[in-house]
């Protein structure tokens, strides 16, 4: 096992963004501070800054996600980068080309940054370590845009930006993450970010079939009763429940799930009065959240989308400078 985290360079600066786990608190705040400077850019008439002019950002999506790809594309374009979108599950791998051969070819096209989405946990680590080991052509930065169940660091960072925006300080908060933690890369990234930033109580709420064992060792309190888990919380992060979870033996039905783990106004009333409601999107209304809450005054779900662009601009600009 390498001693240095593969996402940091020899000076401890960010070379790739692969996971929030192990990122120093100061570095997270630096990213959030940088994001704050970009929030205004999107409100201007000319929504562009020239920080990545002449750079090529390749969106490598081995798993489809229109929304995440679009937000990265917008962020890169607002930094004046050239953007190339590749949906690789439909092109080269089906022709039998190996993942690392694909990467070697794209590196040879003089990419500056890869934004990688992959269905398998750890795939962006493999890509980043391969690039660092071969070092053939320049230094391509890798941004993890979601790998399997493992991590979605830019989502975690934009969630932290949102919480900081509305709550100011992390050190007095109680935050609850509700739903399918087992399959959620967002939950893992949020847990690492929240514990690193000093949130004293992080709760996860869900049925045992959707909670991995050994979760407490990540520094969270586990609740299976949503009402008990929501009591007094300042932030609720709802997780998306994919329909395919209903097909196996994890859950009996969407109806029963909604009854016990769906966020309703009635349940939200148990939280602190100024509790904010977050969701990484896309939402399943009536499965994990009711419309009255999603569209209600405590919802900051659309703010998350706006801040997501600024956060991704911050990550890309910091990487381009390292």
């Amino acid at each position: 096992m390498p001693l240095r985290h593969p996402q940091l360079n020899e000076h401890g600066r960010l070379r790739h963004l692969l996971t929030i786990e192990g990122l120093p608190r100061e570095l997270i705040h630096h990213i959030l501070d940088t994001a704050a400077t970009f929030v205004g850019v999107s409100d201007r008439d000319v929504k562009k800054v020239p920080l990545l002019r002449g750079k090529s950002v390749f969106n490598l999506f081995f798993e489809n996600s229109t929304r995440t790809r679009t937000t990265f594309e917008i962020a890169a374009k607002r930094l004046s980068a050239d953007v190339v979108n590749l949906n690789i599950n439909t092109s080269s791998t089906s022709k039998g080309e190996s993942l690392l051969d694909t990467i070697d070819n794209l590196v040879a096209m003089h990419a500056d940054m890869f934004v990688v989405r992959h269905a398998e946990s750890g795939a962006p680590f493999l890509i980043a370590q391969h690039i660092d080991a071969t070092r053939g052509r320049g230094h391509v930065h890798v941004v993890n845009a979601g790998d399997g169940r493992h991590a979605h660091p830019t989502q975690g960072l934009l969630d932290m930006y949102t919480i900081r925006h509305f709550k100011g300080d992390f050190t007095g908060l109680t935050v609850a993450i509700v739903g399918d933690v087992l399959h959620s890369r967002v939950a893992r990234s949020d847990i690492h970010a929240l514990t690193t930033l000093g949130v004293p109580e992080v709760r996860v709420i869900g049925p045992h079939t959707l909670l991995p064992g050994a979760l407490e060792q990540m520094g969270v309190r586990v609740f299976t009763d949503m009402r008990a888990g929501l009591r007094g919380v300042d932030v609720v992060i709802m997780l998306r429940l994919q329909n395919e979870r209903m097909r196996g033996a994890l859950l009996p039905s969407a109806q029963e799930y909604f009854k016990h783990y769906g966020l309703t106004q009635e349940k939200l009333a148990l939280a602190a009065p100024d509790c904010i409601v977050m969701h990484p999107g896309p939402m399943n209304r009536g499965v994990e959240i009711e419309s009255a809450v999603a569209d209600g005054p405590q919802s900051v779900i659309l703010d998350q989308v706006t801040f997501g662009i600024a956060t991704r601009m911050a990550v890309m600009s910091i990487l381009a400078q390292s």
Partner: protein
Amino acid sequence: MRLSVLNGRVVDPASGLDRQADVHIADGHIVAIGRAPAGFEAERALRADGLVVAPGLVDLAARLREPGFEYKATLESEMGAALAGGVTSLACPPDTDPPLDEPGLVEMLKYRARGLDQARLYPLGALTVGLAGEKITEMAELAEAGCVGFSQAGVPIVDTQVLLRAMQYARTFGFTVWLRPEDPHLARGGIAHAGEVAARLGLAGIPVVAETVALHTILELVRLTGCRVHLCRLSSAAGLELVRRAKAEGLPVSADAAVHHLHLVDVDIGYFDSHYRVDPPFRAVRDREAIRAALADGTLDAICSDHTPVDDDSKQLPFAEAEPGCTALELLLPLTLKWAHETRTALPAALARITCGSSAVLGLGDEAGHLRTGSRADLCVFDPEQHWTVTRESLLSQGRHTPYLGMELDGRVRMTLVDGRVVFER
């Protein structure tokens, strides 16, 4: 051919022999340890000063990848790796392509191995046709062709009735059934030990109950049928406790663990290093300690290499997509010595787990794993102190993937003898 191995530290784990002595060999057998017989004149004298002279190692699980996977490894490359690792007898599991489920395939493999004239090959036949878990094989025919036991390799039998019938049939002829205990449903989709590391890395878990539930089933069927079963690749503390109790009860079972599992745990996966992708998965520290304790108290009879050559294209993939397994024939001895050193296990007791212990599991008796007057002159002569670094270039196996790449180990084979012939020298 007569030769003498002079002044080595001669260790025979079965008898407890451990002393400085000469070993004299004639016509493929050991004729004396210590003073040469009257009139004995060696044609060749091999100096073994500072070296250990042990029985050739006996490995219970070495995948040679023939037939079917010659792009991963060949009989030539892997038999060469065996000798370089001091292994002179090895059992190969039947998960080839096609699987070893017909006498003709086994005869062909034995014929090819004989042609190479190197290590002794003991094939395990498939327990069910095509390893599909539906129809039992012609075990008696396969045994005549040279199979020493019957196995499903890593493919579990889903239908418990088929497993029962297979064990009843094997019992009829006194054959041993080799099973790796893993419930296929509980392990489904899993790629790493279900624990803190898998939860953190977002890897689907294989829980310990996948092993214990399967063990409960197998042990109940052993009670019912009286079939002798060898339990392969135990990985968990809870599983070993079940085996310990089964042995205390007097059930006809034996058990092994893979040599890597004496050392590595799930935390070692690090940042998704696919070299650590193995079946069964590396588990928690307490499981590793339980494996070590089980070797000490005899719950585990043997350590095996679980040698699995994997080609680069199948390994350089995201963790979940990478093919499980690692090359290990050449690491069996140094990793066994490392365990012995760390646990202060005496050398003869440590070597017993890779010589006479594994020979007994195979039912070979004196045929392998022993070093005494009259036994076959299969020897492993090694320098226990020699320090070396594991690199792709240092390995003869065609499989170059092991968690130990780049690491330093002590203990290197210097000479390997089969039937009194020097077949490997370094």
